């Protein structure tokens, strides 16, 4: 039995698992790339929307300030009390305006208004106006700075500087707006988990950042040099998405910073959550499949396999119960049933063949036993008649007796094996009859081993050999012939020898005698005797002939030493 090769369920399981793995391995990279792209796109969209939102609110705020500026500009024409009343109201509505200051064309401070603080005596350095910039014309919105107009009060502001249109040319107003106002619009804007917005000018200076102090403390930094090169829109650099949006009419730009990694990992986390039950499901499915395969395919096939092996080993005593599982595959069931049928059929055929063989043999033996040479009977009866006519009654009586005995032994109540004693009597009767008929031509003798006489012997095996010895050996002899029949034991075997001193045979003649059926179809040939012995006792037994021309012939009949007919049956 070749034990190489894998059992079916392992093959199937490996195929299933391998296919799934290969599929996922080939699909996953492109899937995750697609997934990442989608995530980036959606993160970019979120970022763009966030900065657009911030941009529009800051823009709106600045335009409100712009309109405030024109009110202030108009108020400059009013008299002192009116103007004072206006500023009172203005500062109450706009609590984030820290100061309003006015300047002449050279940037020299003319007046300063504040809701809470009075101007210090000497302003040695005023950060609320940039004389260089107003000389170059046009208003501006400054970078963040502290207000230096007061004593003991240094708030961070951005300053909006605009020309005062009324009452002559060349005057300027500066509006200091607290940075905390901007923080309202910027601080709470989150993009994703850790994303945020900040405000920078077109040169890349940070105007407002939610973590401004961290940036001032050099604990954080933004790559503003890079960001300032970006156009409006979303830009993904590595894992960071920068969404940029310019604010109308200002040099400011809103920058949204968000991270792909966290968007991705959040998405992957989501995916993993669904992957775990999926994996569990797959694993249990594989488990169930393998169990099912085991039950449906593998176990029945293995059962069939071992049944076949058993059948191979011992076909005679094998009995097969066809497999009838509730779950078995139809093919397996029919295979199993076919095998069952086949086993039954083969066993039946084997039995039939054996019976037929036995029948054939028995029939053949009976037929052979029934073959009494009619010439022999005729000649013998003729001789008896002749003796009676001559008054040789003693001889006639003896001959009739011998003939009668010959026939009785021949028949032997139908048995196939008779004691060797009876077989020898049969041979003796035959020789006696022939010695009377061929008076003076030959003599005979028996040399027997008493131990062997109770052994069983196939019926009518010696007589055909004697017949051959007389008709072909002695008949042509001028001198008196001599026939010796001897019986001796040889270990577990018994050997009968028929020896004559007749003309003998050549090698070719011996071969012919052993091969050919008798041509006259009367009586029993030596080949027949040999065949019968071999059928009865096996190939180790039978007849061997030792002969030389003009010297005589010796025929050995070898049989097993058995005492009961059943002993022979066992063999």
């Amino acid at each position, binding site marked *: 039995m070749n034990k190489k090769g894998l*059992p079916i369920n392992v093959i199937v*399981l490996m195929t299933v698992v391998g296919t799934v793995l290969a599929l996922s391995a080939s699909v996953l990279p492109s899937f995750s790339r697609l997934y990442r792209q989608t995530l980036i796109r959606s993160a970019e969209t979120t970022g763009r929307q966030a900065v657009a939102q911030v941009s529009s609110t800051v823009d709106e705020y600045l335009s409100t300030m712009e309109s405030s500026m024109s009110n202030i500009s108009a108020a400059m024409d009013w008299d002192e009390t009116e103007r004072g009343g206006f500023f009172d109201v203005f500062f109450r509505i706009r609590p984030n305006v820290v100061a309003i200051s006015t300047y002449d064309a050279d940037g020299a401070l003319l007046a300063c208004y504040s809701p809470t603080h009075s101007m210090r005596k000497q302003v*040695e*350095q005023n*950060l609320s106006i940039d004389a260089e910039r107003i000389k170059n014309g046009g208003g501006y919105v400054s970078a963040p*700075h*502290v207000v*230096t107009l007061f*004593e*003991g*009060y*240094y708030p*961070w502001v951005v300053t909006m500087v605009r020309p005062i249109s009324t009452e002559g040319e060349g005057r300027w107003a500066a509006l200091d707006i607290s*940075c905390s106002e901007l923080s309202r619009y910027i601080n709470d804007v989150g993009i994703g988990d850790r994303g945020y917005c900040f405000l920078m000018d077109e040169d890349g200076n940070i105007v407002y950042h939610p*973590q*401004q*102090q*961290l940036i*001032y*403390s*050099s*604990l954080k930094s933004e790559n503003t040099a890079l960001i300032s090169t970006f156009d409006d829109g979303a830009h993904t650099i590595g894992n960071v998405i920068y969404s940029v949006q310019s604010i109308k009419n200002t040099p400011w730009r809103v920058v949204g910073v968000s991270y792909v990694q966290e968007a991705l990992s959040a998405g992957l*986390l989501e995916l*993993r*959550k669904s992957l*775990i039950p999926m*994996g*569990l499901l797959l*694993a*249990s499915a*594989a*488990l169930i499949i*393998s*169990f099912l395969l*085991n039950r449906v395919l593998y176990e029945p096939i293995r059962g069939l396999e071992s049944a076949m092996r058993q059948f191979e080993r011992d076909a005679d005593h094998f009995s097969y119960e066809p497999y009838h599982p509730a779950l078995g595959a139809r093919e397996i069931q029919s295979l199993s049933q076919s095998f069952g049928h086949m086993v039954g059929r083969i066993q039946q055929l084997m039995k039939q063949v054996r019976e037929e063989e036995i029948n054939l043999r028995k029939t053949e033996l009976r037929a052979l036993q029934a073959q009494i040479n009619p010439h022999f009977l005729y000649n013998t009866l003729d001789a008896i008649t002749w003796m009676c006519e001559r008054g040789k009654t003693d001889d006639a009586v003896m001959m009739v007796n011998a003939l009668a005995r010959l026939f009785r032994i021949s028949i032997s109540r139908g048995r196939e094996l008779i004691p060797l004693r009876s077989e020898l009597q049969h041979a003796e009767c035959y020789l006696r009859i022939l010695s009377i008929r061929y008076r003076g031509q030959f003599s005979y003798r028996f040399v027997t081993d008493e131990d062997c006489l109770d052994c069983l012997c196939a019926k009518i095996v010696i007589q055909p050999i004697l017949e051959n010895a007389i008709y072909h050996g002695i008949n042509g002899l001028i001198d008196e012939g001599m026939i010796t029949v001897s019986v001796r034991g040889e270990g577990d075997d018994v050997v009968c020898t028929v020896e004559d001193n007749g003309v003998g045979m050549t090698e070719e003649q011996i071969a012919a005698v052993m091969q050919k059926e008798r041509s006259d179809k009367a009586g029993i040939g030596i080949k027949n005797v040999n065949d019968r012995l071999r059928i009865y006792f096996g190939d180790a037994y039978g007849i061997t002939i030792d002969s030389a021309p003009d010297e005589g012939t010796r025929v050995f009949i070898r049989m097993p030493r058995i005492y009961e007919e059943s002993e022979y049956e066992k063999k």
Partner: protein
Amino acid sequence: MRKSRLLAAALLLCLTLCACGARQKPQTPYRMVLITKSTTTQFWLSAIAGAGAAKAEYNVDLSIVGPETEEDYECQNRYIRQAVSDGADAIIFSAISYSENAAAIDEAADAGVKIVVIDSDVASDRVDARIGTNNLEAGRMAASAALDMSAPELYVGVVNFDQTSRNGQEREMGLTNAFREDARVREIRTIHVQTSSEAAREGAKRLLDEYPETNVLIGLNEPLSVGVGMAAEELGLGEAVRVVGFDTNVTCVDLLRSGDMSALIVQNPYAMGYLGVETAWKILEGKPFDAVFDTATAIVTRENMFTAEGQQALFSFS
């Protein structure tokens, strides 16, 4: 037999999957306590603001406590023990007394609490990380700001705070060393006062009264700087006496503008607070961290105070 092996393999697979799934542990925020020297000076307000920024960023459960006066180390010790019994994961600490706070910190460390020291050190080897100004270097900076004058002979008056505080000692050592290297320095006189601008003002006046030749005055922390500056203003010393202070608040800025204060050595308390919480978080998370971190220090004078850098150093944004 083959079936049982299959079963075992499947079970193993399931367990692995479950283990993968269970790795996402829900995290409760770390509990941290920031124990300051004061809760009123601009310096500590900035530090607290910085800690607040890190608290938001790292989702930490942070509580902030500080004594009434900057001499009350016993109050700090009570806070330390309170934090330990409240089950804090980390204490961010600035020691009033280098020696007297050590035992309480050792106890806390024994209880498994992580210790991060900011600004002012404590005599304990159980401290996990130290964050603050390199005070020796800051002292040298103060000295160099004072030496930047043309007078041929220098008589230095130093107004220092509590003798037990480590950073004060180091600053004094730094500037003393630097002054000794300059041949013009004739005398260095140090007085110790309580940490209040009033006490410093009184002390400085007494010093000037006693030693009128004094032409360099140095206050070693925020209230002392204010006090020294106010004394100079009151006496109308002007350019004759060079006044150098540590840290900043609006009064210091006004004094700087008026010329009564010559230079300020500005530390970065916001960074100390922020990095204190951040480092404690890193330690608890098992991430790499700096065991010693020197925060930046700047010299601000009248000339550079309103440059972008000067504004950023002097004026807290938050």
